[in-house]
């Protein structure tokens, strides 16, 4: 029987069909693998539901690895925000000539993408035991970095300093438009109403920038938290942070429980997701103001 096929009913599936390759691809290579990890985090070896894996995250070296990871991410994000803000402000507010801006932005675009193994070697060559700066300081000032100021590239601060190489440019890229969004009229309006520069910053500019600043901080945090290659190339397994531990777990099940590995990965997703949601939410707030 030839059923009449009304047009709208046929149209919808056809339209959907155009999206199918993308949906299948994303499902197979992004959603399903991630779901596999998330589900696995709540299963025991027999596949039954359990919260034991999440509880087990609190055993052995796992809590400390999370803690070190969070500390490095916070430190590199905070310093990245601070220095990046300073540089962006110097350019936007005209402390340095305007032509500096374009090359700085281009450079930041490159450097913010430059996490990875080569970055680790660049910092080893500079701050490592026979690195450029290390040798320079020793020969010219008699300062041995590792002995006199306790700086070692294969350490918490070493990794933080290395991460800053991509954190600062990322901050510059994101915060420059926000700083340029500060209208001259706001500053002048505050001034004629009697406000000093400090009062303007405290009562107007910083509150306006606050969502952008905090949001960028969250993004930088997530950025550092998920960085694997730099950490592994720089410190090998010397530093106990989440990505390195997870890397070892995937390679050889060092935790002795695959589902605990899932839980660890799940923890990473949760932390970066929180940071990213915070970023997106604050960004929407910031844009509402800067309309």
């Amino acid at each position: 029987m030839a059923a009449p096929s009304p047009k709208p009913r046929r149209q919808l599936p056809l339209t959907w069909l155009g999206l199918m390759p993308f949906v299948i691809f994303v499902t197979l290579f992004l959603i399903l693998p991630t779901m596999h990890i998330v589900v696995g985090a709540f299963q025991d070896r027999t596949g039954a539901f359990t919260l034991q894996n999440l509880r087990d995250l609190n055993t052995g070296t796992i809590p400390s690895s999370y803690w070190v990871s969070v500390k490095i991410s916070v430190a590199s994000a905070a310093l990245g925000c601070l220095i990046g803000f300073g540089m962006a402000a110097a350019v936007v507010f005209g402390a340095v000539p305007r032509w500096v801006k374009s090359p700085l932005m281009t450079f930041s675009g490159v450097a913010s993408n430059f996490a990875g193994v080569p970055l680790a070697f660049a910092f080893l060559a500079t701050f490592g035991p026979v690195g450029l700066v290390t040798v320079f300081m020793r020969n010219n000032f008699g300062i041995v970095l590792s002995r006199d100021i306790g700086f070692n590239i294969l350490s918490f601060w070493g990794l933080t300093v290395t991460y800053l190489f991509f954190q600062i440019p990322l901050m510059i890229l994101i915060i420059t438009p926000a700083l340029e969004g500060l209208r001259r009229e706001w500053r002048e309006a505050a001034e004629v109403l009697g406000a000093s520069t400090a009062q303007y910053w405290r009562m107007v500019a910083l509150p306006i920038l606050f969502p952008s600043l905090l949001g960028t901080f969250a993004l930088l945090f997530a950025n550092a938290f998920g960085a694997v290659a730099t950490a592994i190339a720089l410190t090998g397994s010397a530093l106990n942070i989440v990505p390195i531990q997870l890397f070892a777990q995937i390679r050889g099940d060092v935790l002795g429980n695959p589902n605990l590995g899932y839980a660890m990965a799940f923890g990473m997703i949760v932390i970066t997701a929180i940071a990213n949601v915070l970023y997106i939410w604050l960004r929407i707030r910031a844009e509402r103001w800067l309309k």
Partner: protein
Amino acid sequence: MSYLEIARLEKSFGANRVVTDFNLGVEQGEFISLLGPSGCGKTTVLRMVAGFERPSSGAIRIAGEDVVGKRPNQRNIGMVFQAYALFPNLTVAENVGFGLKIKGARRNEITARVTEMLALIGLPDLGGRYPFQLSGGQQQRVALARALAPKPRVLLLDEPLSALDAKVRVSLRNEIRAIQRDLGITTIFVTHDQEEALSISDRIVVMNAGIADQVGTPFEIYNRPTTRFVANFVGQLNLFKADGTGRIGGVAVGQGDFAARPEAVHLGRAAEADIVLPATVEEVHFLGSVIRVTATAAGARIALDTFNRPDVPPPAVGSTVELSLSSRDLIPLK
């Protein structure tokens, strides 16, 4: 001595001189407009009064006190900007109370003044809103309230209406004028819109290329412009050239160029008119109460306005008519 005194003010940016020998005395409670095309230096004068630009030379005195060396935050001046100058992170009430808070006023004092100001601008219920929740007209009212709240000595308005749509512009300008009269605050209003300046000012300063061309009441500026620029810039204008013997339409008027407003030219022979010119009608625009006719007479295009009368149809395009005007209405152009 005037309340606000500007004397021999000059300003150059590098080799580029934007304000030249600017002199103006503003009486207490007076509403003065600086009128001119963009780039004529009117905003620069205002910004020098506010303290955002430092004059190259000259003096600015408020109530006898020279303020040139003072920073903007020490001048006790109120200013309304073109647009979007409200602090987006503060509510309407916080915006209005900002100046008082800076001055260290007590909280209940601020609340009382804010309530008073919001009532003055007719937005008593919007204190809790954020600027992005207001319309453009409402934002500019709040900006006015914010400028007035700390009781400034002088109010500066930097094209506050230019970003608004036409209807709001007219109602808000009347409102600004009413509030200004009420408070008796000395005000300088910068605009490039001649209608705006004519309608609300006590006096107008017409500026051109950094120079104050003419200072006078709207009536004087419109009817007796002293320079060609003022005549051209303010209102519409018909240009008449006297012939070799100094006559127009046979009437002796003297040598040179003359101008006449469209409303001074009549269709047909008017009673008081002594100059009569034959003309051909080119265009007729029926605007309702007024009919604007464009005609050519002796090679010159002449626009004239005539009131609509139900019993007299407008002239046909292409018809030959007589135009008349009184030689007393001719404005000699320098």
